[in-house]
């Protein structure tokens, strides 16, 4: 498979992407994407692709989705001028507040849309994977709302580091299955969710949480998350009368980033900056910076940039944030990197933790560790480009990260002022 794209082909592909003419009928974004699924799932994926075509163009379905997004999720989420960060960075900073969406992250936009779709398709149960637990919580909540049983696969390592979210899933009625195979994080959870789906492709609906996987998932997830960028663009224009000079989002599988970026692709004056997890550093295995250091390959059903070794074995990754700890990235991101429309960089664990604390102090907002990578990348960009208007996708809130944060950032509880003496 050939992943090289000439500059002219790049311009043509970008025009197609802006016109929503990609993916093509084979599920391709240029060379990336496709449908590399076990044969048992091929008919199920066909049915899903047909349902996506039908319902995403069905006014009645979309009106019901809009109504639930408004009255249950709480959309539109605000665009908050971040005056404290702006002053510190010498920039004009705006935060798109997905942390204020119901269940605390952008994941609910996709989970709700797909849960409604699952019900239309007559699914008896929903299965989902989760890394940080945000997609698991969102799926559990959306399935409870829609009225379908939900099983969530979660790596045993992630269950340890995201304990509060595991309890939330239970409370919302989901069954949580600990995945002890492979690397016991998001990637192993996706492997296991696919295995479970293979056993019941007709009755089960697989609610994939990121913009990855076989066609039509990358497209479906992008359509359901594009509400982020569509709202943010309108809000920027309404509040400032102008578009952002740069829009910044964190990238693991890339669902919140593609949701923010896709509606901004046609705005040539807006630079797009995706921030991956730089972990401890640049060595293979020490980070999850797929686009920075990976090569095209096939994992979890699509051809996209991946982290793998000289024998084709997928590599274990590291990030302090479970939601970014994944060795692949969605095929649309691979295309956007290839054609140069999005600039992808990384932020280390330490930079993200530092940015998280700065956001808490300056704005009174506790961001998710994932979102803190976007803040760290935005700060770096601001220092290099003073006086600009910066839009940051604040993809989720950090309450779920308290166990991790307590390890890395010891609590400082001031001693009560003693009585007199």
């Amino acid at each position, binding site marked *: 498979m050939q992943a090289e794209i000439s500059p002219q082909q790049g311009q043509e592909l970008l025009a197609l992407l802006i016109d929503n003419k990609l993916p093509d009928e084979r599920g391709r974004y240029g060379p990336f994407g496709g449908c590399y*699924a076990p044969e048992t799932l091929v008919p199920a994926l066909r049915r899903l692709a047909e349902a996506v075509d039908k319902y995403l163009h069905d006014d009645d379905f979309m009106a019901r989705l809009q109504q639930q997004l408004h009255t249950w999720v709480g959309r539109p989420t605000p665009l908050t001028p971040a005056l404290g960060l702006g002053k510190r960075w010498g920039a004009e900073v705006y935060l798109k507040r997905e942390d204020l969406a119901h269940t605390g992250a952008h994941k609910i936009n996709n989970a709700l849309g797909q849960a409604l779709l699952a019900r239309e398709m007559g699914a008896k149960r929903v299965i989902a994977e989760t890394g940080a637990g945000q997609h698991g919580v969102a799926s559990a909540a959306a399935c409870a709302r829609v009225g379908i049983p939900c099983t969530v696969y979660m790596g045993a390592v992630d269950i340890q580091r995201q304990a509060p979210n595991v309890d939330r899933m239970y409370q919302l009625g989901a069954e949580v299955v600990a995945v002890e195979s492979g690397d016991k994080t998001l990637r192993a959870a996706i492997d296991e969710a696919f295995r479970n789906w293979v056993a019941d492709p007709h009755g089960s609906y697989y609610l994939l949480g990121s913009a990855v996987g076989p066609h039509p998932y990358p497209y479906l997830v992008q359509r359901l998350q594009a509400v982020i960028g569509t709202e943010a663009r309108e809000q920027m224009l309404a509040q400032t009368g102008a578009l952002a000079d740069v829009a910044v989002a964190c990238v693991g599988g890339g669902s919140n980033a593609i949701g923010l970026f896709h509606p901004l692709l046609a705005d040539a004056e807006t630079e797009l900056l995706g921030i991956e997890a730089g972990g401890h550093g640049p060595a293979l295995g020490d980070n999850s910076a797929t686009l920075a250091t990976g090569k095209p390959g096939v994992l979890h059903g699509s051809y996209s940039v991946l982290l793998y070794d*000289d024998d084709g074995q997928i590599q274990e990754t590291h990030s302090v944030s479970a939601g970014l700890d994944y060795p692949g990235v969605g095929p649309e991101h691979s295309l956007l990197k290839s054609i140069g429309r999005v600039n992808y960089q990384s932020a280390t664990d330490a930079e993200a933790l530092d940015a998280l604390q700065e956001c808490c102090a300056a704005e009174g907002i506790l961001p998710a560790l994932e979102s803190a990578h976007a803040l760290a990348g935005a700060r770096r960009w601001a220092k290099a480009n003073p006086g600009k208007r910066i839009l940051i996708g604040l993809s989720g809130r950090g309450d779920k990260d308290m166990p991790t944060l307590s390890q890395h950032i010891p609590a400082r509880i001031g001693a009560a002022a003693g009585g007199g003496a």
Partner: protein
Amino acid sequence: MNDAQQLPRDRISAALNAAPAAGRPALVPFITAGYPDKDAFISTLQQIATAGDVIEVGVPFSDPMADGVTIQRSSHAAIAAGVSLRWILRELTAAGGVDAPIVLMSYLNPLLTYGFERLAADCVAAGVCGFIVPDLPWEESEEFRAALDQQGLALVQLVTPATPDDRLELLCKGSQGFVYAVTITGITGGDVELPAAVTGYLDKVKSHTELPVCAGFGVRHPEQVRRIGRHATGVIVGSALVERLEAGADPAGFLHELTAG
């Protein structure tokens, strides 16, 4: 046509068809390469070749998403021991082949990483006659098939009970070497009753192809082999054999028991 002129993919079909001609179902044993003992890879293959008509050798992959716990375990252990596609082809080439055609089972990424054309050429030298690639559906397989065709190697298509009739026809037409009929809707390695409809399903698959049809996924017991053998050319035995090897049991003895009677 003698052996020297026979295409590798036709060696697979001929070896499988010879079994029913001799009054027994064909047997396709599966092992994960270099597991449980890397040093015993070739000697294990030679033992298995005394009972198997075609041997399926698993190239370990880090994310075997169509496989159950046994093959996940064997794959991860083999990778940790240093087994790779390069190592497998080197070992097979050095051994000068074994006494049965070999089919490699691999997920796509190790094959992509190796490079399709170089892979096909190296397979001929190693005595590999074809491939089973569980995450490469027909629609995505053109480039790999073209590389294999250059060397006369087979790309075996899998069909499943969930495959609609029109697609079954397409896959049976496109398959080479044999048609792999997955018996259950699920992953490899289960120990469940084969569905009652399995015989009708296998008859339907056979009606769509001139190629041998081999049934696999969850085949563990002699009575299953007898039952399937009346409706297919042969059976594929994977997880159950890997578990015997893990337990240190004689693999050829187990395989002979499966097809006895």
